[in-house]
């Protein structure tokens, strides 16, 4: 009998130890999630707290389905994500390969490479807002001084240039995430297959394409998962540089949601938008995890 009690107590111990963590998670994550989900079924306005109790069913979601501005912002966010992630991956890979090759000053370079990550996104936004300013910006002044143009190029106004400028800022800040993870992959890479390939007469491209890249892909997919979550909720840089404008040309999901939720005080509608938007993050995470599993399986086979 005593033995049964002891074993039951032993079984309960992990649960007891986990209880504070579970309680914190429930309070910090689950409760706000449930609350915001509830508000998405109400016409909740920040300035009229009583509206929290008026249930309007799926009205916010139904309205969203025909809201062209929302779907344009949704599509633009997907495009923004796709471009930013691919450019960051390619640049990060290039930087990692270059740093991997040098033998002197590597540590110093690795530290310098991480500098952009250390800045707050708001500061990065301000930095690039001034660089790309059409009138007093460094870029236009440099281009005009070098005689490359006599125009004030509207970097933050023209639809394509404005998106380019924002993507540039995002890439500048976060390429090092890819570079560091891929560099870690390169450090962890066994030397034997590389040497064997060389003995078999493979050229540098073949070694890279068939041995290094498959080995690095799991690291790349981990970086992509992390960054896709980051980029899908991009707000700070865009809010500072363009505020989603002009004329909604750089409107992403979260600049739109913040405006609806805070400036217009329509938190119920904003939360409905936010729930639909999280689908995007879930979709990308699911996609990258599938790719990660596939890449690891491939790597295992290759080994």
């Amino acid at each position, binding site marked *: 009998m005593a033995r049964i009690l002891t074993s039951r107590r032993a079984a309960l111990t992990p649960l007891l130890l986990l209880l504070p963590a579970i309680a914190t998670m429930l309070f910090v994550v689950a409760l706000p999630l449930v609350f915001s989900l509830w508000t998405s079924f109400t016409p909740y306005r*920040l*300035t*009229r*707290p009583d509206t929290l109790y008026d249930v309007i069913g799926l009205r916010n979601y139904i309205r969203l389905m025909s809201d062209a501005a929302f779907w344009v912002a949704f599509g633009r966010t997907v495009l923004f994500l796709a471009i930013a992630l691919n450019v960051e991956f390619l640049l990060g890979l290039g930087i990692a390969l270059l740093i991997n090759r040098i033998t002197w000053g590597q540590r110093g370079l690795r530290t310098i490479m991480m500098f952009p990550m250390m800045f707050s996104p708001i500061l990065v936004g301000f930095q690039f807002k001034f660089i790309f*300013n*059409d*009138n*007093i910006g460094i870029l*236009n002044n440099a281009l*005009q001084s070098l005689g490359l143009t*006599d*125009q*004030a*190029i*509207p970097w*933050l*106004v023209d639809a394509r240039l404005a998106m380019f400028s924002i993507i540039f800022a995002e890439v500048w800040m976060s390429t090092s995430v890819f570079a560091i993870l891929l560099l870690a992959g390169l450090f962890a890479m066994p030397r034997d297959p590389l040497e064997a390939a060389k003995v078999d007469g493979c050229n540098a491209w073949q070694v890279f394409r068939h041995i290094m890249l498959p080995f690095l892909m799991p690291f790349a997919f981990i970086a992509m998962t992390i960054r896709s979550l980051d980029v899908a909720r991009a707000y700070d840089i865009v809010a500072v540089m*363009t*505020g989603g*404008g*002009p*004329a*909604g*040309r750089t409107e992403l999901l979260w600049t739109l949601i913040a*405006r609806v939720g*805070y*400036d*217009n*005080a*329509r*938190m119920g509608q904003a939360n409905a938008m936010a729930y639909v938007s999280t689908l995007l993050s879930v979709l990308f995470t699911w996609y990258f995890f599938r790719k990660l599993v596939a890449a690891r399986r491939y790597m295992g086979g290759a080994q």
Partner: protein
Amino acid sequence: MKRTYGLALGAALAGLAGAASADATWGDFPGTTLRVKLIGGAQYEPLYAEIPKWEAATGARVEIISRKNHFELDREIKQDIAARTLDWCVGSNHTSFAPQYGDIYIDLREVVPEEVLAGFVPLVLEHSTVGGRLVQLPRHSDVSNLYFIRSLFENEDNKARFKAQYGYDLAPPETWAQVKDMAMFFANPPAFYGFQFVGKDEAVNGRFYEMLVAEGGQMFTEGWEPAFNSDAGVRALQFFVDLYQAKAVPAGVPNYLWDDTGLGFASGSVALNLDWGGWSAFFNDPANSKVAGDVGLVRAPKGSAGIRTGWSGSHTFSITETCPSKAAAASFVTFLTDYERQMIEARRGLLPTRTQVWEDAKAEFAASGNDFMLHVFSTFQASMAEDAFTPILIPEWIEISNIMWPKIQAAILGDMTAREALDAAAKEVRELMEDAGYL
């Protein structure tokens, strides 16, 4: 209960009715701590340096728990309303924002004596009233007039070329049609521009709104149907579109806010600039401005309806209903808006809300030989008295603005025609007004 506060404070503030308040007693509130949320920024800070004087006089303490720009403060206040955490007493407010906040602020007529209120410009107090309640005490006002670089208008070559091109004399403009001609005449992008305007957020909608009024249009009919997509509306919006398309304004104006236009004019790269009085001292200060000593100012021009633009608002202070020490809070906001404090702000070019301060500030500028500031104050006093009008004081104004400004930008950038942009905005604004129960 509220009446009791009023009586107590009435006695405490008895000395305030006159212009000078050197002998005023601000009441006695030892041990009281006032938690306040104030608008921050270079223009607003000098007033806060006066707060220790009030603390010394009353024995109370002021704890500034937030100091942000108005847009951020607005978000914070909305979150406080939602979370029911209005645990502060005094907040900066603005006539454009106030209608949104429902009944969180008290009617100041119940705590501020009538003699004190009599010192304020009646029109400004009227603009500070929402639903019959005086929810805010005005600190300084805001209306825009037209600054220009004087030497450009005095240059004989410019005069001759302008006359030849446009058929009338080059002189400080009296109408917006003339502003358009002159802006295009002076523009030489990217080195120099004829004009500029704030191009986003509520700011560009405010500029459109005042132009709409100047063109003889209106935002809504009597029955709250959107009416801004009229011919007058199209003319108003077309003014901005034409200037942008002609490159007479900087290409970046759709991202410009107040600081950008002010600093742009001070940089000497813009001929004409519609801006508020708070910039005047800055524009004429050689340490900050390349156009110092060369700044002209005229009243905001007229639209085709013969009406001057005059979008106006006031920065104000409000007291929350939840404030446990309303008498101390009333003393505090009265102190911040009293004669002496307004004189301090007026000397820096901020437009006072007290009748006497207008006159005395002008007399002070005249006595010290500061003709520029004397001219500035005379010009702004005239426009505050004759031209100023507020946005429509309904809770939905900011939300209406958020529908309007992306459409206005779309027209300016050429994504839509002025008519299409206004029609699209009218459709959305109509839905909003339906939801809000106006239609």
